[in-house]
């Protein structure tokens, strides 16, 4: 809807002060889009992909050439400029898609799961580049299933569950509102888990989540909770005290059922 390719189904929508139904081309001229699936032309070279896209935005050839050089530098693909896209790695294609979305110097960049399917190194490169864009003043709107990604990149985030907004705020605000400062993660031998969960019921913590493989105790002090657990004669196979993350917020808000 924001990219003006789906009509609004209800309510009112304005993007950059414009109406998406009548001003689609004018709005899209100021947006950059990184779709979930790389829609690069794999038969063309890296540079040609940017040339084509620049032309779609009506840019002059010299402007495109100048930006191409800068953007390929930015996404670390300069030495692949003349290569065909097909054999590039997943991370490289992703970075090229990001470079392509920036050819028009958009005011808003829409990203759909920008690092899904990338290895950890490639993810960090993408995150780093997106963070730099943010610092340059580009508004990033991104959807992700990765809570660590949201934590890394978002100033303001919205948790959606079944098409409804479940919560909204900065990562820190959300953690403060929906979780406790610390979490004690306990892992028992599988046959002992159920029994242990019963014995833990009266441990003085804010909330207990019994997952299939672990038990999470939400509390202000993980160490105190662990001491209380041990005082009950329980011996977990592993125990870990950690800070709350957005993952905990997400679990709390959307429940533990399997999502589609």
């Amino acid at each position, binding site marked *: 809807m924001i990219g003006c390719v789906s009509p609004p189904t209800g309510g009112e929508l304005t993007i950059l002060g414009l109406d998406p139904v009548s001003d689609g*081309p004018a709005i*899209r001229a100021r*947006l*950059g*889009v990184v779709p979930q699936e790389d829609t*690069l032309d794999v038969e*063309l070279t890296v540079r040609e992909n940017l040339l084509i896209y620049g032309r*779609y935005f009506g840019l002059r050839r010299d402007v495109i050439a100048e930006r191409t050089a800068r953007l390929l530098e930015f996404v670390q693909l300069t030495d692949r400029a003349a290569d065909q896209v097909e054999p590039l790695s997943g991370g490289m294609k992703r970075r090229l898609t990001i470079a392509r979305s920036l050819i028009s110097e958009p005011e808003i960049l829409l990203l759909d799961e920008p690092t899904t399917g990338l290895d950890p190194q490639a993810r960090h490169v993408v995150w780093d580049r997106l963070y730099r864009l943010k610092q340059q003043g580009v508004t990033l709107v991104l959807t992700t299933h990765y809570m660590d990604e949201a934590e890394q990149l978002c100033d303001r985030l919205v948790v959606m569950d079944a098409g409804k907004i479940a919560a909204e705020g900065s990562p820190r605000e959300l953690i403060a509102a929906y979780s406790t400062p610390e979490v004690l993660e306990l892992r028992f031998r599988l046959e002992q888990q159920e029994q242990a969960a019963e014995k833990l019921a009266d441990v003085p913590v804010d909330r207990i989540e019994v997952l299939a493989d672990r038990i999470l105790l939400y509390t202000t002090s993980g160490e105190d909770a662990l001491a209380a657990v041990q005082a009950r004669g329980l011996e977990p196979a592993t125990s870990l005290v950690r800070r709350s993350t957005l993952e905990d917020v997400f679990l709390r808000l959307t429940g533990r059922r399997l999502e589609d």
Partner: protein
Amino acid sequence: MTQAFAVRQLRFWLTNYRRTWQGSIYSGVLSPVLYLGAMGLGLGTLVNAHSKASLGGVSYLAFLAPGLMAATAMQTAMGESTYPVFGSVKWLKTYQAATATPLRPADLFHGHLLFTTLRLAMNSAVFLAVMAAFGAVRSAWVLTTVPAAILTGLAFAAPIEAYAVSCAKETSFAALFRFGIIPLFLFSGTFFPVSRLPAAVRPLAYLTPLWHGVALCRSLSLGTAQPWASALHVGYLIAVTAIGVYAGNQTYRRRLYA
């Protein structure tokens, strides 16, 4: 505005074409050489000996060549409007990529039609050159067959593209080719006059765009064109093209704006 956007998409296809144009020129030359050689000259010696009069007093080669030019335009249109369009929306998804830019679905459609027009112009010009080399050119009027062949091609390209973008599977094209293009190629007056068809199916032939294209190209090439008949052919082909463009505007939009 719309036109400028369509031209941006045309330039995309031209950039793409840069890597395949040589191959397309070879096949553009080879196909008429084979057909005109085998049919026009080879089979033609038999036809000429038997019944030159039934072809209006011209050699079989002179009869066949302009008809084949129209039929070749149809084949070119078929080639350009099926897999390239389907692939753009289904395999490469370059159409989806383009919808994130100022371009609208109709711009993508019109851009590709412009590209197809250029390809038709190229192939028709190459065909004409081969025709001249075979000695099948009778007057300078033959130059008017090029726009006539382009129009014939567009009468196929526009509706086929409208269909191709909405296809779920590419197997539809094999059926279209087998049951649509090949029968048209064989029975729309390219190789023999439609008047030789059984009376019952003759009206069917007159309804096909290819027959109008063949009749138009042939009459222009042989210098037998009548103003009213030509106007009818041109009008029919334009009407089919216009319906195709209208349909394509809808199907492109439906496929790309979900």
